[in-house]
């Protein structure tokens, strides 16, 4: 589903953000991407959605070399990837329904599809009945669920969550991960960038550890072996 082949990314010819990245994330996988600040995680995500171009190498999404995509194709690449941000990125002057339907309008769904799909995703993230609430009437966890629902609404085959629990307390964070696992169990490929190592270790999922722009560890089952890694730097 996601494949990086010999990917290198340099900024201004001397700052090496990613170096010789080779990895493959299969369809339906649940993968953690961890590493200290400045390790290249953000660059990794930006390359996936073609916000940045690799200096060299090839990136395949859903079997297609995105390097060959023209500017006009980029929106359609991004529709395959649902993005969840640490700071939720909700529209605070719109209610929950409008925040989610916004994503569906962008991909030009009909009104009937919008009504059905918003109801559907709200149920998936456990927010049924909150359609008319405004984001600031909701808790942080609930706001992140709305963001999750928005990412899911367009039924993307891939969900990327960039520090989804960075602003949440541990209990709420667990709830968010539970929802992400639930989404993954329905066949969606999930890639989570996180610093929440206790959860990473609990879940026993694949963990890719980036440092100084290189993959230093790639464990199919993350676990206590990560305990000693100082990933919070």
């Amino acid at each position, binding site marked *: 589903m996601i494949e990086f082949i010999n990917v290198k990314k340099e900024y201004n010819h001397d700052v090496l953000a990613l170096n010789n990245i080779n990895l493959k994330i299969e369809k339906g996988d649940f993968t953690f991407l961890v590493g200290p600040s400045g390790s290249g995680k953000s660059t990794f995500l930006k390359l996936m959605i073609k916000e940045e171009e690799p200096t060299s190498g090839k990136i395949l999404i859903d079997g297609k070399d995105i390097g060959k995509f023209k500017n*006009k194709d980029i929106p359609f690449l991004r529709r395959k990837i649902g993005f969840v941000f640490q700071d939720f990125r909700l*529209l605070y002057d719109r209610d929950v329904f409008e925040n989610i339907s916004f994503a569906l*309008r962008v991909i*030009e769904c009909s009104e009937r599809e919008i009504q059905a799909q918003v109801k559907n995703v709200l149920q998936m993230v456990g927010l049924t009945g909150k359609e008319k609430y405004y984001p600031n009437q909701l808790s942080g966890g609930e706001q992140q669920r709305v963001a999750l629902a928005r990412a899911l609404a367009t039924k993307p085959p891939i969900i990327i969550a960039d520090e989804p629990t960075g602003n949440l307390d541990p209990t709420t964070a667990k709830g968010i991960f539970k929802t992400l696992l639930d989404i993954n169990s329905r066949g969606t490929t999930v890639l989570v960038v996180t610093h929440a190592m206790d959860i990473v270790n609990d879940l026993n999922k694949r963990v890719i550890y980036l440092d100084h722009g290189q993959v230093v560890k790639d464990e199919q089952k993350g676990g206590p072996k990560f305990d000693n890694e100082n990933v919070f730097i």
Partner: protein
Amino acid sequence: MTTKMYLFKEGYDNLRKHGSKTFSTMLIICATLLVLGIFLVLFQNVNANVETVRVEQGLQAFIDDTATDDEIEYMQDEIKQIEGVKEVKYIDKDMAFEDAKQAFKDQEYFLEGLDKVNIFPASFVVKFNNINQSQTVKTAVEKIDGIYKVNYNEDRIQAVISISKIANIFLLGIGAVLLIVSIFIISNTIKLAVYSNKREIFIMRYIGATNRFIRTPFIVEGTIMGLVSAIISFILISIAYVLIYARVPQVGSSLGVFGFLPYTTLWYQILIVYVVLGLFIGIFGSAISIKKYLKV
């Protein structure tokens, strides 16, 4: 709600969200369009007056007193056949004397006794189809037997034409400057709207919105501002023109005096120019503001 309706509504909501900014932008665009409109009206009136001078002003060919009626008729036919001649009017000696009396209304003593021996020659007044053919017509008329002199006030006509040309260039220049100012003003307002919608645009780009989807609400916003300003300006200038028209001479009403065109011949031109400019200012002004936010 279809996508088109949604995008239109977003654009309209933007206008309402920044009500006071929208209002002041439209006020400035209205003022610009009004100034442009005044110039346009002047432009049309100057041109209409020049045209009147061109059409009214013909050449006058004087006929030998010895010419018989048959010869005069023959001459008239000959002149009519010259290319570029629109009409030929015969003025006999009596009419020439009447014209002179009219011209010297206040100094009739000049003409005392002349009614007994009419010294005023008969003539043809020849009008042109096109002022550019005046020279060839003049030369051809001069060659006709029985015509002893041709009067043609070319200098005056050329002066009027060159004045109108300068006026036209001046008006076009002012128009272009005002147009640029309007585009600048509307693009600044749209920039503000784009800025306050930065969050939406960011999310839209991540969700996979096409450039068209992101751009359309802002284009709608600019277009509404341009169009509404155009309509308001049209109403204001129409009222002003009709009020002024009732108090000034009309074009061609008295020779030599600058006159105004009736509004019935002008309103649709103003409306078309306003609507086209309003749309152009709105669409172009908003398109240049949103452009830099559409990079992927």
